[in-house]
């Protein structure tokens, strides 16, 4: 046992460590607008969210209010309304539905600046239901993320909504503690920092958890943007990082973020 302890000590010394540090961000004033917009083939209110950048970590961004936001589809235009007022979230009417094979043009006017983006909606491939792996006594489960890790995929994005507040023992818990949302990506590139990336938080959910899995189609441009974002966030901080760089965008005039158009497939099931 003593001999084993020595080897374990050596192993721990060998592998290294991570620690929290004090680091002053070298802030540079950045007045650019951030656009997060998505139109899908779901019949619902589609959104374009406008915010400002922030100069430090963990700062909630200020919304960009009073902008004019229009989505053009062919010869028709839709004016999005900021709802609620001052939120920076601009919505179409709830009856709006997008179509695969259609190009959507976004125009945003903020003060005297006008920004544009074009997004094409392509069909989505059939989805394979996300599987869940139980813990030792099968009371809690985690999503099997590895089924989405590889290089041969047609690019896609998965939004996984999890809720378990309806289950016995969780009904009286604060609602924020009984739901979660994960986003998983499939790309068709081989990235070392994905293959050998940092540890990601595992969300454990109880048996009986309700899962809504949405699969979004991605154009090459949209996939490229999401890959650049993931390289900066999910795939950074392991032992095989790549050089840091800014994310791409399909927005003009230096705006940040992305305006996308996606076909969606939805699957709802219970973890069991």
């Amino acid at each position, binding site marked *: 046992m003593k001999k084993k302890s020595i080897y374990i000590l050596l192993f721990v010394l060998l592998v290294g460590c991570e620690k929290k*540090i004090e680091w002053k961000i070298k802030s540079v004033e*950045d007045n650019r607008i951030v656009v997060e917009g998505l139109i899908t083939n779901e019949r619902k209110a589609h959104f374009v969210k406008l915010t400002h950048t922030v100069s430090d970590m963990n700062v909630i961004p200020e919304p960009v209010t009073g902008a004019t936001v229009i989505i053009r589809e062919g010869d028709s235009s839709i004016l999005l309304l900021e709802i609620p007022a001052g939120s920076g979230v601009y919505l179409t009417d709830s009856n709006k539905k997008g179509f695969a094979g259609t190009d959507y043009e976004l125009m945003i006017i903020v003060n005297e600046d006008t920004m544009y983006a074009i997004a094409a909606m392509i069909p989505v491939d059939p989805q394979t239901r996300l599987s869940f792996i139980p813990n030792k006594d099968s009371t809690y489960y985690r999503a099997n993320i590895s089924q989405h890790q590889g290089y041969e995929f047609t690019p896609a994005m998965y939004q996984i909504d999890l809720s378990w507040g309806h289950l016995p023992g969780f009904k009286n818990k604060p609602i924020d503690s009984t739901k979660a949302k994960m986003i998983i990506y499939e790309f068709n590139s081989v990235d070392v920092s994905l293959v050998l990336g940092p540890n990601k938080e595992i969300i454990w959910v109880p048996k009986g958890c309700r899962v809504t899995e949405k699969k979004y189609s991605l154009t090459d441009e949209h996939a490229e943007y999401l890959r650049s974002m993931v390289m900066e966030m999910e795939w950074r901080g392991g032992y095989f990082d790549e050089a840091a760089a800014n994310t791409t965008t399909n927005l003009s005039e230096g705006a940040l973020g992305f305006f996308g158009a996606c076909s969606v497939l939805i699957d709802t099931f219970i973890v069991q």
Partner: protein
Amino acid sequence: MHEDLLDGSQMSTIDLKTSDVNKMQGFLGEVEVIKSLQSIPGIKSFGDGSVFFHVRGGNKDQNLILIDDAPIYNPSHLLGFFSSFTPDAIKDVKIYKADIPLSQGGALSSLIDIRTKDGNMQKYGVYGNIGLIANKLSVEGPFVKDKSSFFFSVRRSHIDFLFGLITEEESNISFYDVNAKVNTKINEKNRIFLSFYSGLDQFGIPGISWSNGALTFRWNHLFNDRLFSNTIINTSRYDYFLYLNSQKTEFWQETITNGSFKTNFGFYKDPKNTIRFGLNISQHYFNPGNLTRSGAADEPAKILQSNARHLVTYISNEKKLNKKVTVRYGLRTNLWSNVGPSTYFLIGSEYEVTDTIIADRYEVFNRYNNPEPRISLRWSIDSVSSVKTSYGRTVQYLQLLSNSVSPFTSLEVWLPSGPNIKPQKADQVALGYYRKFMKAKSEFSAEVYYKLMYNQIDYEDHANLLLNPAIEGELRFGTGTAYGLELMMQRRQGRLTGWIAYTLSRAILEIEGINNDQPYPAFYDRPHDLTVYLDFELAERWELFANWIYTTGSAITTPTAFYTFQGTQVPIYDSKHNDRMPDYHRLDFSARWQLNRKKDNNFRHTLTFSIYNVYGRANPISINFNKKEIIFEEFIIPSNVLEGPKYVPTQRSLLGVIPSISYQFEF
């Protein structure tokens, strides 16, 4: 460190003997040839856990490492914690930071010329080392006394055994090196050598694996007392595998093979003129990374494999102008040809594919012709001091494409120059002053250098470098500028020996399409570099060593603002390499105890105790802004986008205080 600074005609050259390397205890008590280079001014290590190094502002792929004239790629074990060469097998190591001999070339920034032991023609010898991570055994001796000898050395790790003690899980982490040489004196005018090297790493199940193999035949011939030649035929192969299943039937593989014929002549025309000339013909094959899958319905795009030929001729003259001044000048010519069969893409000015070209077998579809003039001058001021200066052009036809900032070797692509990638070139001038202090048994050297590099490579943001047939469209090209001052004071004799070395340097890149076309410091731009190495004979059987290294932190890119998208806080970078990692410094101690009472015993053995990183400096390998703390000092990438941002800046480091013990023997 044996360095013929004063008297040798070559400048910017270090000659390391095995006795020097053996004294420099490295990580876990393993003596390291490549890692010991970081003590030399002008050579900067990438960092802890890394076998990469940078010489005078050059990138990590701009160093040519030869073992008995055969090139070695990725000379690392265990991802980079150890290097490939066993000191017991090494006779000497010559490091050229500039003024590279005309008989050699192919790398922009340095040549590391490793010669293995020839074998003792008089008597047999056995040497061994038992360490915490690996064991070594070497045997040498005569086949026929004074005529023929052999040397054989093997090093094998026992990490898998150690892991077996800690865990029941199967592990496959191991490495080995084998060196072998046969040396034969045919007669007074002819001598032949046959040397072999093989190194292999396996890491994980299914995991990764890489290997180097080299075989060299050398014939030294003396025509008469004024003309000699050496002729070398060698072949080498490098493979890297990423296995996708435990049966190893599906894998990503990269391969480089080389075969060359070289012949070099030395002609002592008269006491004032020594002429050297020669020829080198080599053939290369490159597979930059392809996927092999058994029974896969949709094969991913095949990555272009290619062949190249390289024809080199050179001639130089070392001329004594007078008693004090010697000049060496010459020219090396290069003809590089890309040869089919190959299918390649032409990349346009917007980095897009504009055409696809198919080259037939043996068809030469691209050529580069690059002369490399070199000149150096030595002025012996007096018997204790000299001044040297040199100018040289170097050309490099093979580049390592990697956007990684990791200290470890991983999936990387080696790609030859071709229609879309011009050869890298460098012009370097250097000036040095050398002085001996006889009473103090010390030497001082000061060198300044200025280097301009052309066709330097950087990458598009988030470049896609693996399994990308149009990989050349991810590259961006420009220039690099490096300059510096290297100072060293060295004491070679007495009970206390060692050196102190300081380098002040810069390495700046200017690449089209990167950083808004503005210059930026290279990742390996580390302006201050200080090394203190001490070796003290405490008593007849005790020797103490200390090594302290300090360098400025690497240039890194840190966020200057953030934006929120899909519940994630995304960094914004205002400029490339706008910041620096914390400075790197580390102290190592070791003590060697000679166990046999008499130094000249037939059986001699020693115990070496060492502590790596004595004061436990947490030297960072990365600074991150994308994790949250889940429990004390455990950090993770957040998954739940409904949770508000709770990011903390973190620093990842590798090596703490590492004590070790090793046992060496010889008889």
